[in-house]
Structures are given as C-alpha cells and as structure tokens.
C-alpha cells in the first residue's frame, strides 16, 4: 500500500511538473532591440533603451492575460550596417522575434529593411531620421522624427519671425545635408536669403574658426546641425566663444543641438539657442511630469530624459498597442495594420500618430528657446506647431 501511494504521489508530482508549466504557460512575444550601446555614440542607444525599458516596466500589467513580452538587446557598436544586418538576421532566425526596434544610425536601418520585408517582421524605428527610410519596406514604421519635420518647421518659423539673412553650417554627412535642405525649403521666400553654406567635417575638434567667419558675414541667425553629443557641445561652445550672440546672431537648429542631457555640459554658451524640438523635458504637460518623475526614480535624480528616451518609450508603446490589439496572437501583417493606425494622445511629448500612408510619425513640433529657470538651463517652449508631417515625402511623392 505504502509503495503504491509513493508511486501515486510520484506520478502526480511528475504530472504536475510536466503539465504545470504548460497550463501556466505564458506566451512570450519577443522584441529585438538593435541599438548602439558602445563607442562614442553609446549615450544615444542607452537613452533609447532606458526609455523603452521604462515603458515596459510601467505597462507590462496591461498586456492580455498569459502574454509576456521579452526584450532582447543587441549592440551594433556604431554605424555598422553589416553588423546591424547580421544581428537582425540572428534575432529573426535564431531568436524568432516578432518585432524589431531601435536603430540609431540610418545606414543600419537601410541594411535591415530587406530583411524586415522578407521575414514580415515589423520594424519600429526609434531614432534614424532620414526621410526615405519608411519607403524601404512596408514593414517599417517610425515613431521618432525626420530631419525635415524639425528643420523645415524651423525654417518656416524663422521666415514668419522676421529673419532675413541666415547662414547655414552643418556637419558634413548625410543627416546634416538633409537638415540643410529642409531648412532652406522652409525658409525660402521673398526678401529672405541664405547668405552662406559651410559643411564642417565631423573630425573637427575646433569650431571657433568657422564661427569667426560666420560672424564676419553678419547674418541675423545661424542655422546649425551637428551630430548629437560631443560634437554639438564643441560647436555651441565655439559659437559662444567667438562672440556670435553678443553680435546679435541667433543660433537656430533642430532639437538635437540643445538636447536636454547635453545642456548642462554646454553651460551658459547655450543660452538663447532656438530650436525646433520634438520634446522638452520641462514641458508641464501632466503625462510628461509623470514620465520625468518615473525616469528620475529609475535612473537618478540628476538625470534628465532626452528626446531619444521619449522615442524609445513611444516605440515600445506602439509595439504594446499592436500586441494588445491582436490579443496576443501576433502576426506580421496584423501588427503592421495596428501600428499603421496607431495614435498616442498621451505621449510625454504630446499627441502623436502614425500616418497610415507613409507609416511615418505625425506630431507637434515645439519652437523652444534655452533659458535659465531657477538656476538651471532648460528648453522653454515659445510656440507649438501642430500635426507636422514629413515634408520631404510631400515634396517627393513616390
């Protein structure tokens, strides 16, 4: 009898071991995030990652019952399209991800595009900003922004606000040239002219000589685009050191040049910089206040989320919405259908939506000015331009 009972218990136990996982089985939806997490641009990838992880932790309870999300992070180490493509291949073939996300650099996204199409994997761009990227695959959607959305809007704003002579200086690479064309297109018109163009090599450590010759040309404003991070800080400091603000020249640029996390490093040199930004940490909107509070609690009281962090947040929000819309049974086409029509009226950066025709983001763009508030440098919003689409696509229909 004892023996039988032992065997019975044993069988029950075995049964429980074998069956229990299955019945409590969570279906795992895997998201592959390919970001730049090392090298000089590490902070960009880190920010996107932090924003995405924050959203995930906050909202995992909202997922349909029995559905879990697993985020697999990979480092493409920089603008290395071959590495990025291989990582994407591995994520798709080896890890069977149902979503791809992230990407800091445009060439990396362009290399992955054919894979997204072939494998029918939705690919959510959370930074790469070249306009034509969403046309490279029907499975690409972008939640971040394009250079045209910021620079073109700023050009139009500058035209409306009495600027007549503008000098343009951009970092000599694709995004810089993109930004330059966008500003020019927005600014062009009667009585206004671009009085000079300079392309600055990315390896330049010293920007003062450029600033000096710009000062000599006596423009009303300088439109500048430089890569995020160290290069921008050096350029803005060069601007101040050469005395351009004292000479009455306004520094204009996309939000990249006055990113919230870099403002502290730039110091007072950044005061007065006017940018067209997609996000400002100082925005008093309740969703943003909540977001910043969460961020500080998670990552430190003295850290500030940048626009890239918000893009990571929004990207994960888009993915979550697709999962919820399909009640956890995720397919490539189903996800794209959900994402194409996704709107997020409560994003920390303001209401955003995906344009179903272009799969690109439509959002409000803020004209911000860097000012000192309570002893700290912040971006203060002067004007909001609503529902900005990517103008490049409008001007270059397929």
């Amino acid at each position, binding site marked *: 009898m004892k023996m039988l009972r032992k065997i019975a218990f044993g069988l029950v136990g075995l049964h429980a071991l074998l069956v229990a996982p299955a019945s409590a089985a969570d279906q795992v939806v895997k998201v592959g995030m390919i970001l730049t997490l090392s090298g000089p641009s590490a902070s960009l990838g880190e920010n996107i990652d932090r924003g995405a992880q924050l959203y995930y932790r906050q909202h995992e309870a909202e997922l349909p019952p029995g559905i879990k999300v697993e985020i697999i992070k990979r480092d493409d180490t920089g603008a290395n399209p071959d590495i990025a493509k291989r990582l994407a291949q591995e994520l798709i*073939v080896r890890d069977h991800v149902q979503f791809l996300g992230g990407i800091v650099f445009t060439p990396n996204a362009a290399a992955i595009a054919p894979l997204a199409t072939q494998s029918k994997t939705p690919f959510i761009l959370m930074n790469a900003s070249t306009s034509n990227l969403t046309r490279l695959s029907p499975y690409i959607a972008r939640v971040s922004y394009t250079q045209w959305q910021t620079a073109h809007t700023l050009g139009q704003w500058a035209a409306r606000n009495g600027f007549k002579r503008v000098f343009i200086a951009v970092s000599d690479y694709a*995004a810089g040239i993109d930004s330059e064309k966008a500003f020019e297109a927005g600014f062009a018109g009667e009585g206004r002219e671009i009085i000079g163009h300079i392309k600055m090599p990315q390896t330049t450590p010293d920007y003062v000589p450029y600033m000096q010759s710009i000062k000599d040309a006596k423009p009303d404003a300088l439109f500048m685009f430089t890569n995020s991070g160290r290069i921008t800080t050096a350029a803005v400091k060069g601007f101040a050191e050469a005395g351009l603000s004292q000479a009455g020249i306004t520094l204009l640029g996309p939000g990249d040049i006055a990113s919230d996390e870099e403002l502290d490093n730039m110091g007072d040199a950044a005061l007065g910089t006017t940018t067209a930004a997609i996000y400002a940490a100082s925005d008093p909107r309740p969703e943003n206040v909540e977001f910043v509070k969460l961020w500080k609690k998670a990552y430190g009281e003295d850290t500030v989320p940048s626009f890239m962090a918000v893009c990571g947040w929004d990207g994960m929000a888009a993915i979550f919405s697709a999962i919820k819309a399909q009640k956890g049974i995720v397919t490539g086409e189903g996800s794209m259908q959900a994402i194409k029509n996704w709107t997020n009226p409560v994003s920390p950066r303001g209401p955003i939506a995906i344009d179903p025709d272009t799969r690109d983001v439509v959002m409000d763009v803020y004209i911000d000015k860097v000012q000192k508030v309570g002893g700290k440098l912040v971006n203060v919003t002067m004007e909001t331009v609503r529902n900005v689409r990517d103008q490049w696509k409008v001007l270059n229909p397929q």
Partner: protein
Amino acid sequence: MTSIGAEQQSLARGFRLPELLPWLALCALYVFLPELLPLGTQIIVMIIFALSLDLLLGYTGIVTLGHAAYFGVGAYTSGMLAVAGWDGPFTGLVAGAIAAAVVGLVMGLVILRTKGLALLMLGMAVTLIFYELANHFPAWTGGADGLQGISIKPIFGLFEFDMYGKVGFAYAALALLACLLFMRHLVLSPFGRSLVGIRENAARMTAIGVPVQRRKLIAFSIAAGIAGVAGALSAQTNQFVGLNVLSFELSGTVLIVLVLGGAGRLYGAFLGAPIYFAAQDILAKGDPVYWLFWLGLILIVVATFARGGILGLYGSLVQRFWARRLRLKRGNP
C-alpha cells in the same frame, strides 16, 4: 627579434591533415548550427581580409594601419557595379579584386619608398582620404547613409541569396577556399620565400640580387587585391555598403585578428577571426562597454608574453615538447 612567425617548416608542399580542420569546422557549422550562418559569413570575410594582411605583415614584414582602404575599394566597386546593373556574383568579386589591386599598386608605388613610422602614417593617411572621398560623393557611394539597392543575381542562376544566409555562407566559403589555395601556393613558392627574406633582412636580399622594391610592390598589390575580394564579398553577402568599410577601426580590427591568431603562419587568420568574434559576443553580452577593457588586456598580454599569437604559442609548446622528448630519448635528464 620580431614576433612574426619564424618557422615556416610547419607548412609543407603537400597538404597535411590539420589543414583540413577549418573546412570540417565550416561544414559542421552549416549542418549543425545553421542559425549562426550569418555570423559565420562575416567571420569568413574577416578571415580572407586577415589572410591578405598576413601576406603583407606576416610574410613581407610591412606594418600597416591602413589596409581597410583596399577592403573598401573592393566593397564599393562591386557594390556600385551591382547598383548599375552588373550584378553577377563572380563578376563583382573579380571586379572588386582587380580594382583594389590596381589602387594598391598605385598607392604602393608612392608609399613603399618609406618605412617604419612614415610608412605607417602614409598608409593611414590613404585610408582616411578614401573615407573622406566616399563621404563627399554620396551620389556615387551613398555617403554616410550607405549604398543601397544592391541585389546580387543568384549564383549559377540557381542559388538565390536568402534571408537565412545559407547561400551567402557557401559562397563565401568557396571564395575563402580559392584565396587560401592561392595564398598557400604563393607563400611556398620562391617568390613567397623571398618575401620572408625581405622581412628578415632586406639589405642582405639586395646583396644577393633580389629586386626588393619590386617584390614588395607586387606583394602589396596582391595583398590589396585579396583585401578587395573580402570587401566585395562583404558587399555582396550584406547587399549593402556603409562608410565603415573604409574606417580606421576596421584597419585596427583586422590587425588585432591577425596577431591574435599568429602572423606569418598562414592559418593565423583562421584562428584569430572566430576567436575575436566569439570573444566579442561573449564579453559584450554583459555590458557592451567593458568588452573594450578585456580586449585591451588580452592585447597587452599577447604583445608582451605571447608574441606570435595563438599559433605561435602552440608552435613553441610543440617545440618544447619535442625538445624534451629528444632529451629524454638521449638519456639526458
């Protein structure tokens, strides 16, 4: 006393059994670990690239930090041809090789007149100039956004480049085989032996009548050409070319790969590349930043204690083993 491999006796005219190992490994990878094929393809590309550097560095003794220039020339040539419509796989490879060899010849004529630090600097300057050129002419090269729209015709009209990387892997392995056979024949030939002589003592070689400059130039060209093959292969299997093919980082990486495996021993490249990629994969999983720390440490250790890389270590172990056996045999303690 250089660290570059001293004994060539391990390579003999006829193929020895250990030389089959890399090919067995590649076959095993294809059969048992097909999810790793994209990684395997990139490793093969790096092996070919490191082989080309071995000819230059390991055999001829020319230290260069600018070898990526020829990789890049090969990549962009075959990429641009593919975009323009000449998208046959083998034509792309050959075109990349020839373009790189020609550029190598021209550059070699200019910079091989110097040596030491000057040569190092000039090699670097060439790569940096090419990088800037590629960045400056986006209409041709795609600039910083990269060269898009490359699609390669199926091999022999049958095997299409697929998402799983199977065809790409087999194609790259074939290219590797061809390059290896070529290199092996070259280093065992009188020409190849004379290169070693030039590395060890160029003055003496001149004294016995070897046209040193001409040989160096030929070696440089050939090395550039093989690097071009690697570059073209990269462009074709990725169907994309980014500016990173001309970067200083790439020059540094291939140097590290070769030295880790062991320069001047032909098979150093076969060891160095997988180990480098594997180490990167493992060490970077934890926190990507700190992989750099470990790599740096490994390099310092190798440079200080294990000159000649892994093959060198293995070689000296084998030597010590045999020397000991000989001593024991002779009855010496």
